[in-house]
């Protein structure tokens, strides 16, 4: 079935099983591998993408439901000033260890800062709570939110 949507600001059409997940479509049919598969059942957040600006687990979303919507992945976000601001903050905070959760974390931090340009620790932790990280114990990822808020003052 042919499905049309916007991917990182570009219109795109894919011809796949409508039940195929957005994650599989991105990784296999679109060649975009920044979104990772950590569990494939909505538990880890490694597959996080933005659909109409909302953080969603791409592994849970059948591609048919994406039809006509705006999808943004890290491949798109990293081209923007806000995206680079979050990425640089995450690197500066040393919030990347193995890096497998990092793409999802960047998107989660971005959504947080869009909503709360000056977040509290509790707001940051709540915003990240759907994204598991087994390496960092989270504090340095939390720090990244504050660094991005400060360094990106005016952006958010």
């Amino acid at each position, binding site marked *: 079935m042919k499905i049309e949507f916007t991917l990182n600001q570009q219109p795109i059409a894919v011809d796949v099983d409508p039940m195929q997940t957005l994650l599989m479509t991105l990784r296999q049919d679109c060649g975009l591998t*920044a979104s990772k598969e950590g569990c494939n059942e909505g538990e880890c957040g490694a597959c996080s993408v933005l659909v109409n600006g909302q953080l969603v687990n791409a592994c849970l979303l059948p591609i048919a439901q994406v039809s006509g919507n705006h999808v943004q992945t890290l491949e798109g976000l990293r081209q923007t000033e806000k995206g680079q601001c979050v*990425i640089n903050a995450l690197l500066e905070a040393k919030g990347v260890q193995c890096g*497998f959760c990092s793409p999802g974390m960047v998107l989660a931090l971005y959504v947080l800062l869009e909503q709360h340009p000056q977040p509290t620790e509790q707001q940051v932790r709540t915003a990240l709570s759907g994204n598991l990280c087994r390496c960092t*114990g*989270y*504090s340095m990822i939390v720090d990244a939110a504050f660094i991005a808020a400060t360094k990106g003052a005016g952006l958010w």
Partner: protein
Amino acid sequence: MDTVDARFKWLEANGEAQYIADRHYDGLLEGRFYRSTCSRGYIKAVNVPELPDGYYLFSAKDVPGTNRLPIVVPDWPAFADTEVRYIGQVILLLVGPDPLVLEQLLTQVSVEYEPLTPAYTVAQSKALVDGAIHNQDNLFDAHQIDKGDIEAGFAQAVTIFEETVTTGYQEHLYLETQGCVGYVADSKVVIEGSMQCPWYVYHCMSTVLGHQHIRVIQAPTGGGFGGKEDYPNIIAGPLAVAVNQLRQPIRVVLERREDIAFTSKRHPVEFHYRTGVDKHGQIVAMDIKFDLNSGAYFSLSGIVLQRAITTATNVYDIANVRIQGQAWCTNTVPTGAFRGFGSPQTCFCIESHMNHIAQQLGQAPLAFKQAHLLTNQSTTLTGASIFGELVITDLIEQSVSASQYLAKRAAYAAQSSQGAYRKGIGISIFQHGCGFAGDLEDTLVKAKVRLIKDQNEQVTILVSNTDIGQGLVLTFRQIVADTLALPLSQVDISVVDTDSVPDSGPTVASRSIVIVGYILEQAALALKQQWQVGEYQEIEQDYQKPSYHQWDQINYQGNAYQSTSYGVNVVEVEVDMASYEVKINDAWGCYDIGHVINEQIFNGQIDGGMVQALGYGAMEKLELNGEGVFAQKSMADYMVPTSLDVPRIQRSLVDNPYPYGPQGAKGGGELTHNGAASAFVAAVEQAVGQAFNRIPVTPEVIAQTLTNEPQANIKRIDVAEVTNEN
């Protein structure tokens, strides 16, 4: 000199790092394992459907070399041949282009077994129903250490405490599941994958293939924590057989549920303590027995056993000790390496036992522990003198003052027993031996490193140690750059590829910095002395055992590790007395890892290790069901801490340079997992006024303990009349 590298992990943060599942290979086929559905039995027949064109099946019959993977001893078959020993053991590898067709074909395979009675627990293993699984007695390994005179020690005791303390399985839950791709290039069978120890994979491939036209390359690895020490061999063995025959690229990436169900886990352990205390409240004898459930194959259990035995008394100087440790074969998933490698189990159990004795004696746990600490004059459990300065008392002082432990402990002891929320604070003291056990670095590993300097004065590090998230490549570059007084940008590190890097040993046992980093520092010093501008130069350097290090591997006597790192953790909790939910309000970690090379990198290890250990103590429940498989099947069932479950860790260090480590550093990656579970449980014990003798301590466990009969587990025997004052 640069100490930070803004580009470090840049590819990962930008989503450009190519993990194994992200890589493109022309003509890539997928591989899926057919796994045993029988815990124990003989394979009578394997019935396979007719395969469509382009689909292939591999089994033990296809192994051109030896069908036994040499992990420590060659006992784990690449493909099960005559017998199966656990549910999930690999019997077949199915290969073809379409994963959906593969899944369908898997459902059409059937295996007929002649089943035997399985043993899932140590007790069942000892019972030998239907005979032994392994040898005559199911005993994989056993060792004993005697220090002092245990009988004479107990003769001085006025009170004897007997207690059993147990720890459960723990799943690594690295965020990237296990996976490898195999292909042929330049007539070599190449395996790329998510792994800690490429040379281990190399040796396994050469054994199953019977030749050495092979090459192993590490892909970016999404976490390991020990879990990618042995299991990549289990994938690469069968995969190499298929690639060797088909000469086409094949990928095997495990699904999350498959990874949780069938990859190696942390050993569950049951410690039995019998401890004698004299009339002054001093421990005079400890008789310790423990059993490890090793699962179906030996894998790394011998080394885990050795660590658990040689560090059984943790940081305490006990005059008379007997320790007997045994590792048992069962029909369960083999247990293997997990950050700490026997130490988190040992540290939790002994710290809990010490706390419980102190409570029984009416003493404060910290004071009781302080009265038994190792000192610079002590002789270790394995009969060695202490090398270097011990700073355990500084660690304690620093932790106590940072956390206000004493004041809080007193305040929480006085809180109302009727409160809806009750607070508690706990402390743990612990150690971790760095590097391979005993002197195996010298007798077994024999690490080698290489440095290359090119005509443009650019230096490249060649080692087989992998960065699996712990930031190793940055620390290695920093060691070499600092020694050569070069900017960090002038020092690169090679991808770990067995075609180009020497065998500097596996990435395990907190050895990468203290052992390999030190050899690198030596190599850099040599290069500095011989530096010739504009010339290509190569320096190779081997491991050399420090002269003080003596070890007897048969009798476990001498320096159990080349060096030992230490730590103190404090954890503060608040328990909701209606729901028994525990909120971890604060956690402190103070460490002696010699001299830290890159504090920010090590802080990341402290945070990550302590949070894993808090998970281990508080929530990570993994249990076998009646069929010998784990009841927890997915990330929804096996819970690890989220950002809301843990506080910001308050970290600190005590500087204590070690003369045989790079820039004075010792190991630290595993140490950070050893203490937090015990400090957490001690805090919960204070809050709810009950002792626990197993982890995890979940709200359900607290509820059971408080509502049912409390488990008065520690047994107190007063022997004063019999043996005292005679």
